[in-house]
């Protein structure tokens, strides 16, 4: 358990804790204290997760009879029920349909903005960056009603949306996700691009590279670590997005992404928490996969940024 406890923790802190432990900046007893504190914090942080995973393997009848502090009632039935009865596969596909275009669009559009902000000095550069950042701080709930009404009155051809409006289609949901995530991505990418040496752009200009070429063939390969790091984060955030998906799909149950569809495991009155845990574990898996596949680039992106200058 301690191995699982420290691994994500270390990753989350961007590789700093191991350096501190080995670096000798702290004396030995203080280092031990720090380790103990971090272990305790990691355990506190992981406890609900481990608890959910444990209970997802237990039968409802057993825990209801003996309480959650008991030990026993092991079963795989919860996972079987989740997968078979509620057809989660369909909802995973919906999540994919929303997440992939949204992440690609967000990264593409924000890298365009970031490139301009970082490479050219216009009068409104700072204002533009501030606007992006400010929008990022805005609570989405405050925009619920205007966005809902706006989407309801924008018509779409029927082959794009069964409902005939942006409301109830994936287009609107993808657009709103892109809009809300662009602020953060633009901010990170423009800061990252500013750290690229100015000389290579002068060189490129001397060689006759157009602005587009400077962006696409010079900047983009260089910011790949940052893009990978942002990609990981954005996949997690957009995949986990619940609020807009529930509201903007116009209550069409078969279009819900997996996060909203998790509610299907709750009845009107009756809630089987073990079943819900099994569902949650399944829903969390794709994020973990993305994280572990991209973690090398994720960590590389963080350290690249921090050692520069």
């Amino acid at each position, binding site marked *: 358990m301690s191995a699982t406890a420290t691994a994500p923790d270390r990753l989350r802190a961007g590789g700093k804790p191991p350096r501190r432990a080995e670096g000798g900046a702290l004396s030995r007893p203080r280092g031990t204290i720090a380790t103990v504190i971090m272990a305790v914090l990691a355990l506190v942080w992981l406890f609900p997760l481990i608890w959910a995973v444990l209970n997802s393997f237990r039968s409802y009848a057993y825990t209801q009879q003996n309480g959650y502090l008991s030990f026993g009632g092991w079963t795989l039935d919860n996972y079987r029920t989740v997968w078979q009865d509620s057809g989660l596969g369909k909802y995973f596909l919906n999540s994919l349909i929303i997440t992939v275009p949204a992440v690609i669009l967000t990264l593409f559009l924000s890298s365009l903005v970031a490139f301009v902000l970082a490479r050219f000095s216009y009068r409104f550069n700072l204002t533009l960056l501030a606007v992006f950042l400010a929008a990022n701080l805005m609570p989405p709930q405050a925009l619920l009603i205007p966005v809902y009404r706006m989407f309801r009155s924008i018509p779409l051809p029927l082959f794009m949306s069964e409902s005939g409006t942006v409301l109830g289609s994936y287009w609107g949901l993808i657009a709103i996700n892109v809009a809300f995530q662009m602020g953060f991505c633009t901010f990170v990418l423009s800061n990252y691009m500013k750290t690229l040496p100015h000389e290579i752009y002068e060189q490129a200009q001397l060689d006759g590279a157009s602005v587009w070429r400077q962006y696409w063939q010079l900047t983009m390969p260089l910011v790949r670590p940052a893009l990978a790091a942002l990609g990981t984060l954005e996949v997690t955030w957009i995949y986990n997005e619940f609020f807009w998906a529930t509201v903007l799909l116009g*209550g069409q149950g078969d279009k819900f992404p997996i996060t909203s569809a998790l509610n299907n495991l709750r*009845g009107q009155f009756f809630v089987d928490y073990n079943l819900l845990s099994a569902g949650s574990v399944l829903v969390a898996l794709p994020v973990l996969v993305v994280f572990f596949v991209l973690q090398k680039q994720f960590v590389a992106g963080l350290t690249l940024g921090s050692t520069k200058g």
Partner: protein
Amino acid sequence: MNQPRPGYQQIPASVLGMAASRRNVLRGGLLTGALLGSSTFLAACGGDSGGGDASGAVKFGMNEASGAGPAFDRLAQMAEAYAKKSGVKVDRNEVDHNTFQENINTYLQGNPDDVFTWFAGFRMNEFAEKGLISDVSDVWPIDGMADSFKTAATASDGKQYFVPKDYYPWAVFYKKSVFEKFGYVPPTDLAELMTLTKKMQGDDITPFAFADKDGWPAMGTFDILNMRINGFDFHMSLMAGDEEWDSAEVKQVFETWASLLPVHQADPLGRTWQEAATSMSKGECGMYLLGTFVVDAIPDDEDDLDFFTFPELDSSIGATALDAPIDGFCLSVAGKNQAGGKEMLKYLGTAEAADAGNKGTTPFIAANSNATTSGYSALQTKSAEVVGAAENIAQFLDRDTRADFATTVIIPSIQKFLDDPSDIDGVTKSIQEQKESIFV
């Protein structure tokens, strides 16, 4: 771009469907409905505005998702039976109960399904007044549907906007084996109730199981106490916002409740109703005031469960009222297929539809009295008797009043009261102040 193709292909099928339904309709002598149906159908075909189906299919919004168990099966079976009988395609939209209910406002103002599941009474009236659901008074009277259901389906303008499906009563549940073992008898008035609770405490049993972690279960206790102490009419006008929450009457309800709390399970705020039901199942508690869905949490005890209506507290008021929420269907104004939806509603009210849905193991009871009852369990049969004998039926607190008032004011207030039962004046005053800002 491939959308027009299947639509085009569906036209012959829908024409067939129309013909089939017209035959049924003619038999029922309701030609107008079919004519209306075909005209909407043609309009939808020709116009580019409408969107949705040109095929005459009915969109059916269900507040249960697959995996939710018998409640879902029942709705799905009814929809299937209608599709089979009429030849009309029924497009099911399955959304889980809580999400459906929380999104009902955006749903109805957006692109709602034609027919959707909803609640009778106040919550239906709200939408009728806002013009979000269609007048379906020509579906009424429905053969086999009692007057009390018609009243529950009638909005403030005197027209019907609702077709009932089923209902379930709230009552005091107990285990027959426990009552037999200790020789307990269901009480009929306050004195008997107090004697019974004393006896139970003597036998080391907590008289009432009690939980309010979810927020809504304790509303049932408030409802029944208010109806027993102040009567049904006062309860309904209090729910409608016409009475003061800091009045002597309401305070008396809370005082009575406070005096009964010692015979309830302690610390209800940390317990879900399922846990409370389990403690009754284990014999730690003697009784539990809840809806018949209590069976869902303790299915093994179904044959051992019995119930009685909450005893009278005031002999001048009696024990003739109870909570029995009615579920059913409405027709949305924004739905594209009004005539087709109405045809489906007409079917959903029949005994035939009730029978089609009643193959599950659900403890709920069909609203239509002509429905077959031979397949009912003992609990279902008794529920039907008890509700049939009741003079007045309430729909449950969060259905009899504004949803925002129930969830944002009543739930936290009741939880605060259960946490500290001594401050009744403070709780009622705070409810009243918030009520004034919500009911304008």
